[in-house]
């Protein structure tokens, strides 16, 4: 090694040290042309510069993280306790409470009688012409009690599916519209199948194939609802 080589090495190291001193300012946007010049000449300093720029770039795009659901639950509970939250009264209730009829007290007995009548009407056997999933749930219960529900599907499962459906109804407003539409179409297709099957099973309770289809449709509905709820969680 010659004296010249030593001098060159020393100059190189000095330039690297200067680079180190200027690097912070350069990354802050200050004019430090020497930084770029030296980076072009020194592969090791070039690596340092590239690394720090990469870190700076990547840190602008860090993934966002979802908080656990209890955060909102706790916030909501505290705000409610502090009286900061006001319940929104649905429009129909606001109208209802304005009626002079209900400004006076109504005989309790008359109200009770009305309630009993309403309950009786709502729980009477469903005629075959009834449409809708709510009707099919009570029809399901009839089928369960009639003992022709397919194996593997009982009132417990129908309740679970109904709960999942309720949860889906609550969350679908927050889903991507096209995704929501996909799930709705699938559930509509399955609901149509279930209703059809139930009607058929009432007419022909011994039709094993129809019962198999009913079981399969219910299973598929549970799968689709589970997928929808999972999707809305993300």
């Amino acid at each position: 090694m010659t004296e010249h080589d030593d001098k060159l090495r020393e100059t190189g190291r000095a330039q690297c040290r200067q680079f180190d001193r200027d690097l912070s300012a350069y990354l802050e946007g200050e004019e430090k042309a020497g930084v770029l010049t030296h980076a072009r000449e020194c592969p090791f300093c070039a690596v340092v510069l590239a690394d720090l720029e990469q870190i700076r770039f990547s840190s602008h795009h860090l993934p966002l993280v979802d908080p656990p659901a209890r955060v909102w639950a706790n916030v909501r509970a505290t705000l409610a306790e502090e009286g900061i939250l006001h319940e929104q009264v649905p429009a129909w209730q606001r109208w209802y409470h304005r009626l002079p009829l209900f400004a006076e007290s109504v005989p309790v007995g008359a109200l009770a009688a009305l309630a009993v009548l309403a309950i009786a009407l709502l729980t009477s056997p469903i005629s075959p012409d009834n449409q809708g999933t709510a009707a099919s749930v009570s029809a399901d219960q009839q089928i369960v009690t009639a003992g022709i529900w397919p194996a593997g599907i009982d009132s417990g499962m129908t309740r679970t599916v109904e709960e999942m459906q309720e949860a889906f109804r609550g969350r679908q407003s927050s889903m991507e519209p096209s995704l929501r539409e996909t799930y709705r179409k699938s559930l509509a297709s399955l609901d149509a199948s279930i209703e059809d099957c139930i009607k058929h099973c009432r007419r022909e309770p011994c039709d094993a194939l129809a019962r198999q289809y009913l079981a399969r449709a219910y299973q598929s509905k549970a799968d689709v609802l589970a997928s929808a709820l999972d999707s809305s969680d993300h």
Partner: protein
Amino acid sequence: MSADKIPAGKAVPETQLIARAQQGDEAAFEALFNTHKRRVYSLCLRMTGDTAEAEDLAQEAFLQLFRKISTFRGESAFTTWLHRLVVNVVLMHLRKKGLQQVSLDDVDTSQEEPVKRDYGEDDQRLLGSIDRIRLAHAIEALPHGYRTVFVLHDVEGYEHNEIAQIMNCSIGNSKSQLHKARLKLREHLRRDQKSPQPEAQHSSGSKDER
């Protein structure tokens, strides 16, 4: 009993949500929460490096927000207002814990350690696109003071004069701490790249898809 849900398919302007929240509308509160929850929680998590603390602080930040929302007059963007509030909540917490945020000494660069270089090795830049999950872990592993400045500046985009004001330090200090933070992160990531550790379980509540 439940408040009317705000249909998410229909984007309600934030000004409307704020106005409704100022009237105590629960659905508006929830909508504002859902809009900002990820940024708020992520900021708390990055500044504290701890999921339990981040949860508590995010909660506290939203509570303060909703308690004070009636005072928001629209002088600045709501997001900016919320952001400042979150940063204050976190810093107050860190100060209460007695954590030194930023060295109050004047910056002395004369005795600074030289930046590590891998002399003798081929050009080994950090991999083309840094694994952001690993970067997030590396940020959590930074010392508190470095982490706060790094998160505020490089992640959240605060300027040094703002950081200096927030953290009650000099601009020079803020710059120096930021540079040290970046160098520390670089060291951590390069170490990781050379001898990778088993993937740490990220218990922050992020939902990894299978």
